[in-house]
């Protein structure tokens, strides 16, 4: 009887502690990234000095202040994209024509494929995108401090600091894109390759400048082991193609664009989709190893015989 009472007491104490913790955390999302200020200022200098010095001189401290002022000392559910206007003005730079790369549901792949702006410049390869990529932040009312404990998710409120930032960044990125535009979609994504609602659908397409764009190139790539849910001319991709054509754009669409396939193949080199016709022959030769002493020794012997032969010829 006493044991039962003690166990019940223990369980209720644990329950109370955990619910107290939940009450302590205001929001459901992760808190602000620790050392946020140092990280973003460092990234700013990394970008202007090393990654893309072509953007010229920027005042990284000023950019940080403008960024911070967009969301500190406010209700974290009342942040709007235009609150980042000054930040964008200070960090904006030209996006080279033909280098824009839009995407949905394949961020890590796009990062690899864009090669840090050398091949393509995705939004994460611009100064304003690089500044905040993969980071989290929010403020609180009546305090200039950042909330490191928790931040609202988009489900809790749409007008949060991070969501509004990316809406502003995406719109800006689309507005300043020109020439041949590329968009990389995931043909294995649940719900379709072209999600609606989505950043590309709602913030990027509406902000493309038609008179500056020569063509829109769509790539739909399936995961190597993934299902072929969507392709060019079907379902959501068809909807995208129709929308862009109706807007007057010249478009092309390719399934499983080879360059991107090779990148996906890194993790599945033996999959049938990834077999190179040249390496099918090479596989027969096989790797050389010191365990197979035979091939090394034969070679040494032959070299020695060759040497002796040449020596004999000379003398």
């Amino acid at each position, binding site marked *: 009887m006493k044991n039962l009472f003690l166990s019940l007491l223990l369980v209720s104490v644990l329950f109370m502690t955990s619910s107290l913790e939940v009450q302590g955390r205001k929001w459901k999302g992760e808190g602000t990234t620790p050392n946020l200020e140092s990280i973003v200022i460092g990234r700013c200098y990394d970008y202007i000095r090393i990654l893309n010095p072509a953007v010229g001189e920027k005042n990284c401290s000023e950019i940080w202040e403008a960024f911070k002022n967009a969301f500190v000392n406010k209700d974290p559910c009342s942040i709007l994209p235009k609150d980042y206007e000054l930040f964008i003005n200070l960090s904006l730079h030209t996006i080279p024509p033909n280098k824009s790369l839009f995407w949905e549901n394949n961020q890590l792949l796009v990062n690899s494929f864009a090669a840090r702006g050398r091949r393509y410049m995705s939004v994460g390869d611009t100064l304003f995108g690089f500044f905040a990529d993969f980071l989290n932040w929010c403020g609180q009312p009546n305090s200039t401090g950042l909330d490191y404990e928790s931040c609202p998710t988009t489900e809790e409120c749409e007008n949060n600091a991070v969501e509004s930032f990316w809406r502003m960044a995406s719109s800006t990125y689309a507005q300043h894109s020109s020439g041949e535009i590329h968009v990389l979609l995931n043909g294995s994504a649940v719900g379709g390759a072209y999600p609606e609602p989505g950043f590309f659908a709602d913030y990027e397409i509406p902000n493309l400048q038609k008179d500056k764009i020569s063509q829109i190139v769509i790539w739909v790539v399936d995961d190597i082991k993934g299902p072929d849910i969507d392709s060019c001319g079907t379902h959501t991709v068809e909807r995208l193609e129709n929308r862009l054509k109706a807007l007057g754009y010249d478009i092309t669409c390719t399934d499983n664009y080879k360059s991107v396939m090779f990148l996906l193949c890194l993790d599945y080199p033996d999959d049938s989709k990834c077999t*190179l016709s040249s390496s099918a022959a090479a596989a027969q030769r096989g790797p050389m190893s010191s365990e197979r002493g035979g091939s*090394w020794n034969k070679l040494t012997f032959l070299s020695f015989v060759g040497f002796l032969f040449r020596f004999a010829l000379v003398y």
Partner: protein
Amino acid sequence: DKDCLKIWESLKDAFIYKDPCNITSEDYQPLMELASHPIPCNKSLFWSKTSDLAHRYTKSNQNFLTLEDTLLGYMADRVSWCGDPSAPGINYESCPKRSECESNPSSVFWKTASKMFAEAACGVVQVILNGSIEAGAFRSSSIFGSVEIFNLNPAKVSAVHVWLMHDIGGPRSESCSGHSIKRMKSILEERNIMITCEDNYRPVQLLQCVRNPDHIDCRLCTNTT
């Protein structure tokens, strides 16, 4: 947990106000100690004359780490520094090249860091070498050939896997049966470390094909539309 400000101070102290032609490994010891961290076994990836390829590979495949993917290497990559005895102690205008003096802050840093990276390696280690250069895939003049290979610890490292890559469409100056690989083999076997070698290791070759998708060496067996 690392104290980044302290790490910066120890880097600065290694070279500030010093003659930039007289830097030693000892100058970097405090930094090495503060910034070093253990490397999981079987994950060390060395490289020589294949920087772009090796780093693209580790970026796409988190199973391997080059020196430049460790904290120390990541901090210092693509950055240069040197001091000067006169104020302000840091020279933002110019720094000595290796040809001007060998014991310059940058060269000594990378030599010291490479030695540490090699010493920390355990299990099976990988190295991506370039079979398309004339001077040979394994060269004694490189950091790999002069520092790293000699600082692998035979008590910890069981084998070295060589991935010998040819540029797509590039010359096949050397392959696994070549002279410099044989030399590398004898160095390692003398140190009791096994070596294997593979020409054009497929995953890395796939990465090369990203840049040359239409080259004949990059034809896929299945015809994907």
